[in-house]
């Protein structure tokens, strides 16, 4: 039973991993399973609309029920729900894009994204998983973990996303210390060349960082001449404090600073 669930999950992951449509044989080859096994699982998944069959090619792709589940995940997320208005006002105030992220193993998972309010074409990053050490949201959240948690993160994968990504554990550790000291994190083209992010942690009633909120945009606007835009940073920290207060964490948050 447990094995079937695992195998069904691996089918869904495979369909979500790049090639959007796969046939039974392709899936069986990729997962090292018998075709009959894959067929049985696929039929069950199809009945629940977790996958669907492309009428033209006969191949399978992810199904519409997954979108509903994804939305239900987001709707049920307390930090996301509480951040909607704060994020809007932060985007308006700073004229930049705003993202809210929560820790998810080695990544920061984007649960909310407000576009830069300039009518330009932008791509929705909700659902994106950014390596924690390459993101201001990730670093801001990690800095407020306990020693064991930080140790675990530093011992995990630290991929280099650009030439500026910090990948040395010792260097990251000292960066996290200054973030705790200053109450905010800065990212300078460590995930994407040309982009910077300023973020502050959101602290809940237990004093844990449940996530972070930040402003992301062109490096020349957020870090002009290499210096942090103080007005944007002040707005980010104010909003993060407001969100923390909503979650009942303001007193602890104040103690952390």
């Amino acid at each position, binding site marked *: 039973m447990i094995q079937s669930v695992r195998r069904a999950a691996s089918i869904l992951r495979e369909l979500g991993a790049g090639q959007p449509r796969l046939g039974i044989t392709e899936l069986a080859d990729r997962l090292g399973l018998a075709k009959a096994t894959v067929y049985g699982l696929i039929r069950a998944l199809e009945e629940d609309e977790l996958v669907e069959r492309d009428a033209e090619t006969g191949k399978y792709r992810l199904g519409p029920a997954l979108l509903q589940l994804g939305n239900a995940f987001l709707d049920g997320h307390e930090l996301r729900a509480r951040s909607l208005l704060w994020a809007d006002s932060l985007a308006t105030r700073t004229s930049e894009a705003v993202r809210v992220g929560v820790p998810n193993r080695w990544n920061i998972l984007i649960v909310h994204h407000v576009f830069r309010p300039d009518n330009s074409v932008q791509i929705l990053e909700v*659902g994106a998983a950014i390596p924690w050490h390459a993101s201001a949201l990730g670093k801001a959240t990690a800095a407020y973990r306990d020693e064991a948690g930080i140790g675990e993160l530093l011992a995990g994968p630290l991929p280099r996303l650009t030439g500026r990504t910090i990948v040395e554990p010792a260097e990251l550790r000292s960066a996290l210390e200054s973030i705790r000291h200053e109450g905010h994190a800065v990212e300078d083209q460590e995930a994407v060349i*040309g982009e910077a992010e300023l973020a502050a942690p959101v602290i809940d009633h237990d004093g844990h960082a449940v996530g972070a909120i930040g402003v992301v945009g062109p490096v020349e606007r957020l870090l002009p001449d290499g210096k942090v835009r103080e007005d944007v940073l002040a707005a980010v920290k104010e909003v993060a404090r407001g969100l923390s207060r909503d979650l009942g964490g303001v007193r602890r948050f104040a103690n952390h600073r």
Partner: protein
Amino acid sequence: MGRVTQLDGGFVLRWMREMAGDIHDQRDFLTQLDAAIGDADHGINMDRGFAAALAKLEAEPDGPPGDLLETVGTTLVLSVGGAAGPLYGSAIRQMGRALDGAKTFDAETLLILLRAGLEEVQRLGAAQVGDKTIVDALTPAIEAYERGLRSGDDLVGATSRAHAAAEEGMRATIPLQARKGRASYLGARSAGHQDPGATSTTILFDSLQRAAAWEAGP
């Protein structure tokens, strides 16, 4: 067709004229490629940047080739947003610096310049071939250029090989999943789309090839 021996500032100017023209013509296509996995601004940004760079060169076209390349690079860094400005701008600026004030250069020196550009791109982006970036077109193009020179090609032959190799590298990005840039953390969305950066790099080599053919004459 004569064999090209020495290249000067006029060659850089023609290369950039070809490039600015091609990028302008391909602007919508580049933007369309970028819309699948980026901010849909690659074509617009590159068009604006190369037009601005060319305008600067046309205003002061008489300097040594290295100075002209540095002017182009600096203008791109300042006027192109996103990752493209810093990457192309810094790479072309490094190419200019590598010339160190020389009044002319030859096909062998062009190889050194191209390598200096690639090195700069990799220093900034830490990308390898297969990461679905500019490097996927740039690396095979430089290798093909070198192979051309070693097997006795002149500038025209070697740059045309380089263009063909860039194009091949560009097409090879289609099935790949990006491992660098914004597309890398947007999950599987990048697979099935040609990389816009590898595409604009191919345009750069196409324009280089035509500038070389122009040098050689009819």
